[in-house]
């Protein structure tokens, strides 16, 4: 386990040991031995300019405005890159140093078009007594307004290089650089093209670093704003509401509006980074289209209603539905929200039928992990990716879906010499940084990973000590993989035997570090592994590889299913699953049942409940009559949507609680307006099990309420109707809810909102208040004892294979600029403008063969439906395979095509492969094939009809 924290005496001695004293303008300051003079000067409370020093990163040394005088040295020194030494005497105010610094500032603001400079440059020039440069203004080249979210105005630029550093060395994207030399030097993309045509992902890291406002978000006022200079804003530190990376955000608000987002440099998960959605995608919270009042269906129309009427109606109808009720929790809401919802479902409605969207993403990972190691969570931390020698990334378009993790992967490759192995049928962006890209046909992963295991065994690269002491089932499993030579796998997967061997060797024998130290391998996977009918087997074949090589439980290794939504991990942790209570205690364990029943003062059911995909079938059979859907839109995210819609329409009573109107809410009987992440206090748990605080930025919109408060109130009213005690539903604040859940859930027993306020995010397990949290699981043993090899064999690649009529394989996935189905991101104008229509990526040869050209509309048809999308010829694709993101735009959504065949163990649908064909738009639909989705005209923001 973790080392205990040092005693107080120790730490004071350590501090003295690690510190030096230097004298700044006659004042003694104590600073760390590793500090630079600039740190010491700032620590002394002196406001020294340092225009080019990037936040929390190595200095650039370009602006030369941080000059100081060091006693005993002839030349002035740039304080940002001059290390401190004990006893140094420095001066920031002598006549000489002030004169030179003023001269540098004078030259600096002379670069602007009016000679006054902008942002921090102007501010520091003024503090040195210059309003206006003594030189004739010599502004540089014009503006670049091609990016949707921000613009570059070269005449405000001082060429400090911070934007380039941010792009190249923080985000590791390398879209921009300094072009030209000397007088003609300027910021621009690699080929001096428009910003928009570069590889820029609009993450805005560059904008966050610009000291002058030369790079500025488009809606800002350039006269006053510069990002590093927004001291007057009201800033809230919170956690990003988008993906499972869990980036820390510092959200600025001016005049009541969310105006800008900085990355939180103190957040260990994101280290000051964000992606485009976290940076520029929060506008949805203040959208006019938010739901602000309860709606009740009257005369087949949803009409505004009072909270009281709505809650009463819901309470009565739910009270009547006990026995035929299920709920869906939101992986976007907080742990506290999820906890109250599952408690309501179990304690009030008497059923374990509560589930959430992880069914549609990582359920197979959880099934396999539970079976093989005994815990469904990511074993390691992002920090381990930094330290690994090999990074094996399978079925994850990390750059699109977990952009900040992708930045860390690129950094590991570019700065630390790690080898990146990408396994993906699509040539994703990350392949640019990869050492090998294995491009198997969809659905052939098992053959591939079994063959990798085969190579490892054949070349004797396995970790025998680990196999002997920490695993079981090795011999039986070995017999299976020994049958799968790389050559056999080549014939199934289309990946050359040579590449399979290379990947196997890299994984089993990761690159040593720069000083020759041994390093580990990290295995990272995404939905490409799980969203198949054999999703669980895919995950098993991967976990077998980790067990074979012992690449789990140590520093710089581990296994990580990357979590899709911001709080998928937390939603599972807090018990929104049909088979387990909070903290993964089985509902059918009588001891567990007794304990929770007592705590909640009710008789809890012991029968496992329905998985969300099974709920659809029960709606169709009529066994399930009432549903409570919180923060989810199954009528967009479920496969074979026509079928799902039919099921939902059969319900007697549907309650949807959300922040926007959407496909499912449109057919609900009652719609309840919830607050967004921007109006809540609570916690999200990210993909590396880090529990982090979410803090309110704005006041609740309209009549919207906290999810937990709505559920709590429904529970109280039902209990009243049933004449039961409302004992368990007296919640007044999320803090109090968190207290209850931590008291009852051992893995998070050491957490409290207060502690998180003080220490920042903490990774569970954290059993007590002294415990620092756990970056790495399974260090000495697995929860189930020994890790279990489970033999799996390659079957047919998909439930539905390409045929003569449907010759292409459709792969679905996500898009960087949209969030899942797009319910949220359609309300961010910039994101919508970046990707306004559904596109279909296709290999040039296929497009040519079928006679479609780039930008043209095409109809994609499967056995279940058809949609129209815009052709995007792309070298990402292999022949015979096409890709459509599952976002719904203008009424078009890929899930009208997908197959609802399930993985039997995990209940996940096969989103990653179904058979389709391309045809001219308007080709008539065949009978019984479901509705045709034509694009609605114009850009619909929101989806109210």
């Amino acid at each position, binding site marked *: 386990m973790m080392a205990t924290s040092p005693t107080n005496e120790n730490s004071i001695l350590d501090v003295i040991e690690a510190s030096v004293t230097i004298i700044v303008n006659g004042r003694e300051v104590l600073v760390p031995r590793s500090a630079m003079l600039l740190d010491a000067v700032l620590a002394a409370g002196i406001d020294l300019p340092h225009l080019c020093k990037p936040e929390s990163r190595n200095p650039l040394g*370009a602006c030369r405005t941080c000059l100081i005088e060091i006693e005993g040295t002839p030349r002035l020194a740039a304080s940002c890159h001059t290390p401190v030494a004990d006893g140094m005497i420095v001066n920031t105010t002598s006549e000489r140093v002030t004169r030179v610094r003023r001269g*540098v500032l004078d030259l*600096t603001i*002379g670069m602007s078009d009016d000679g006054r400079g902008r942002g921090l440059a102007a501010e520091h020039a003024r503090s040195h007594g210059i309003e206006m440069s003594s*030189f004739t203004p*010599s502004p540089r080249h014009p503006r670049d307004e091609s990016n949707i979210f921000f613009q570059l105005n070269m005449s405000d630029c001082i060429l400090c*290089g911070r934007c380039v550093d941010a792009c190249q060395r923080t985000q590791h994207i390398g879209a921009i650089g300094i072009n030209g030399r*000397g*007088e003609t030097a300027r910021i621009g993309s690699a080929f001096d093209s428009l910003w928009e045509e570069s590889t820029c992902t609009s993450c805005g890291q560059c904008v966050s670093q610009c000291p002058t406002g030369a790079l500025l978000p488009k809606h800002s006022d350039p006269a006053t704003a510069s990002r590093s200079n927004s001291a007057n804003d009201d800033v809230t530190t919170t956690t990003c509401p988008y993906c499972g990376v869990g980036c820390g955000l510092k959200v600025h608000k001016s005049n009541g509006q969310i105006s800008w987002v900085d990355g939180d440099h103190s957040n260990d998960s994101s280290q000051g980074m964000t992606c485009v959605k976290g940076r520029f995608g929060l506008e949805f919270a203040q959208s006019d289209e938010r739901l602000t009042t309860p709606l009740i269906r009257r005369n087949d129309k949803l009409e505004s209603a009072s909270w009281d009427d709505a809650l009463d109606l819901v309470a009565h109808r739910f009270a009547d539905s006990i026995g035929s009720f299920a709920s869906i929790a939101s992986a976007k809401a907080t742990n506290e929200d999820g906890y109250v919802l599952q408690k309501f479902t179990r304690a009030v409605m008497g059923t374990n039928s509560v589930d959430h969207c992880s069914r549609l993403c990582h359920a197979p990972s959880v099934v396999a992990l539970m079976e093989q190691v005994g815990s469904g969570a990511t074993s390691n931390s992002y920090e381990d990716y930094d330290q690994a020698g090999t990074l094996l990334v399978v079925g994850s378009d990390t750059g699109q879906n977990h952009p900040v993790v992708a930045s860390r992967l690129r950094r590991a490759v570019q700065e630390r010499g790690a080898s990146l192995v990408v396994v993906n049928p699509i040539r994703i962006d990350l392949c640019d940084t990869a050492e090998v890209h294995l491009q198997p046909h969809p659905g052939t992963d098992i053959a591939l990973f079994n063959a990798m295991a085969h190579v490892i065994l054949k070349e004797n690269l396995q970790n025998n000590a680990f196999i002997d002491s920490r695993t079981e089932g090795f011999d039986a499993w070995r017999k299976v993989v020994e049958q799968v030579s790389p050559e056999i796998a080549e014939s199934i997967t289309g990946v050359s035997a040579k590449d399979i061997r290379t990947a196997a060797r890299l994984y089993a024998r990761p690159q040593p570090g720069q000083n020759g130290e041994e390093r580990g391998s990290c295995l990272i996977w995404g939905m490409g592994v799980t969203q198949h009918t054999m999703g669980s087997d895919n995950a098993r074949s991967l976990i077998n590889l980790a067990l074979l090589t012992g690449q789990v439980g140590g520093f710089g290794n581990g296994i990580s299913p990357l979590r899709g939504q911001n709080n998928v991990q937390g939603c599972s942790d807090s018990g929104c699953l049909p088979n387990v209570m909070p903290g993964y205690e089985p509902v059918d364990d009588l001891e567990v049942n007794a304990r929770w029943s007592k705590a909640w003062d009710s008789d809890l059911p012991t029968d496992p409940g329905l998985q969300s995909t099974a709920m659809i079938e029960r709606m169709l059979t009529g066994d399930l009559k009432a549903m409570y859907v919180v923060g989810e839109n199954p009528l967009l995210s479920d496969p074979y949507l026509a079928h799902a819609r039919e099921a939902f329409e059969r319900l007697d009573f549907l309650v949807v609680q959300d922040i926007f109107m959407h496909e499912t809410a449109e057919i609900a009987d009652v719609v309840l307006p919830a607050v967004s992440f921007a109006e809540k206090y609570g916690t999200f748990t990210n993909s590396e099990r880090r529990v982090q605080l979410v803090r309110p930025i704005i006041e609740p919109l309209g009549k919207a309420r906290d999810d937990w408060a709505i559920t709590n109130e429904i529970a109280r009213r039902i209990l009243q109707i049933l004449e039961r005690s409302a004992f368990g539903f007296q919640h007044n604040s999320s803090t109090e809810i968190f207290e209850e859940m931590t008291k009852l859930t051992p893995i998070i027993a050491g957490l409290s909102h207060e502690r998180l306020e003080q220490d920042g995010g903490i990774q569970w397990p954290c059993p007590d208040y002294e415990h620092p949290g756990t970056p790495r699981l399974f260090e000495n043993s697995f929860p189930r004892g020994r890790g279990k090899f489970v033999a799996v064999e390659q079957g047919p690649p998909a439930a539905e294979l390409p045929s003569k009529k449907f010759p292409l394989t459709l792969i679905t996935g996500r898009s960087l600029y949209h969030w899942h189905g797009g319910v949220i991101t359609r309300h961010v104008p910039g994101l919508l403008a970046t990707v306004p229509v559904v596109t279909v990526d296709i290999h040039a040869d296929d497009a040519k063969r079928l006679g479609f050209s780039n930008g043209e509309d095409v109809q994609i048809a499967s056995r279940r439906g058809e949609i129209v999308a815009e052709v995007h010829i792309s070298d990402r694709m292999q022949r015979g395979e096409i890709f459509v993101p599952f976002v719904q735009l203008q009424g078009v959504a890929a899930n009208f095509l997908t197959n609802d065949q399930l993985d039997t163990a995990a209940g996940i649908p096969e989103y990653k492969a179904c058979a389709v064909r391309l045809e001219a738009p308007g080709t008539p639909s065949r009978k019984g094939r479901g509705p045709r989705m034509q694009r609605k005209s114009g850009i619909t923001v929101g989806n109210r009809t």
Partner: protein
Amino acid sequence: MKTNASAPLARLREQHPAPRLPRILVHCGTAGNAMGATRYLEELRIALGDRSDSVVEAASDGANWAAPAATVAQGTYMRRFERLDLHGIDDVIACFNGDCGDEANYAGTGGRGLTARLGRNDGTLGDVLAQGGYSALDRALTSTPEQLLDAIEDAGFTGRGGAHFPVATKWRLAAADTHRPRMLVVNAEEGEPGVFKDRHLLEGDPHRLIEGILIAHYAVGFERAYVYINGQARTARAIFENALADAAAAEIFSGAAWNQTFGLKIHVRSGAGGYVCGEESVILNSIEGERPVPRYKPPYATDRGLFGNPTIINNAETLCAITTVFEKPPPPTKLVSLSGDVPRPGLYEIPVDGATTWTSLLVMAGTNPLDVQAILIGGPSGVFVMAEQFEEVLEMRSLGAGGVVAFGSNTDLSQITRELASYNMRESCGECTPCREGTTRMVALLEHPAEHRKEIANLIEILTEGSLCQLGGMAGRPIQSALDQFPTAF
């Protein structure tokens, strides 16, 4: 010098015998070819008929003014024949046949200093070994690295790239760090206009540089050496790489010839070009594949240089000069690249022994010092020396990298000053504000210098104190010098 050869060196000499004399070396190379030297190579071969293989191609010996030229090597002496285009080849053939005429023009063989063999060998190992090649390394291997460092320190060797930092001090800084792999970077970028010594050394005596590298390696212990050659010096690079291959084949580079394992890996790289590309940290970035701009210092390369490892960067001449460390007394000489208004522009190895004056240098170059109003030392980062200072004794430091330009009495020195300012502006890499902006502003101010005395003085201070690297840091130097030396010219 063949004296005191160890058994291994003697064996090497046996394996690579000296060429037969007499013979004729035609000075081709970049400098000679530009003047059509290859034509005389052909003419002489035809003229000598069945003895034509005694006519060999050699590089320039530094006397660029004399090209096209040839040198006849007889038993114990050599004689150079200049301007074959004016004088023809008859005298050369006569000398080859034993009649060399006026003895005043003889140069003895086995001379001292780092130009002893320059252009006077045919590039074969046999010729180089016969003329003393690798005898300094041979000698060094008989002492300990510490004794070697002491000898270098005692001889007072300083870097020849311009800054004249003591060689032994620098080497010791890196030698001390035994935990990390150490790197050697040989700076042969030679981006400073008017300097051409490194190119001459690489073309005319590449084995001397290899020998210098191996001596440095013996003293410090490197893992890798990078030789960074100006991208335009293609001939120099080709000749150097050939020599490297020969040294490897003869097991000199591996150390096997001495029954040792040196274990040094060597890489040759070509530079991006431009003045600032010779600055040491630009070279580090360039080798690492980064943008060729300077790094800030500290940290210094000896602490965190190439790929973060302790790194020694030395000028090519510095390493060549080190091969003279065992000469008694070690000759404090410096290569001077002399150009401008003199009859004999070219490369000169001059003693910096407290006796040489600017006047003696000018006389050597065949000029009357009275015809020269000023010289510029150190190019765009340099200073002017005026006629009245020509009697001053030369010092190593003041020579910089050894670029010297003479200006006749008709030259407008204020115009030269403006050109130097423009040059610095053009060559500024643009990374730091004082230099990028300041050099541009300087050019504008120099349009009307009399009105801007104070601003110019301020700007010089900002450039000097504020710049990130020494291109900007020294860009004010020639201007300050001009203001000091000929204020009335503005």
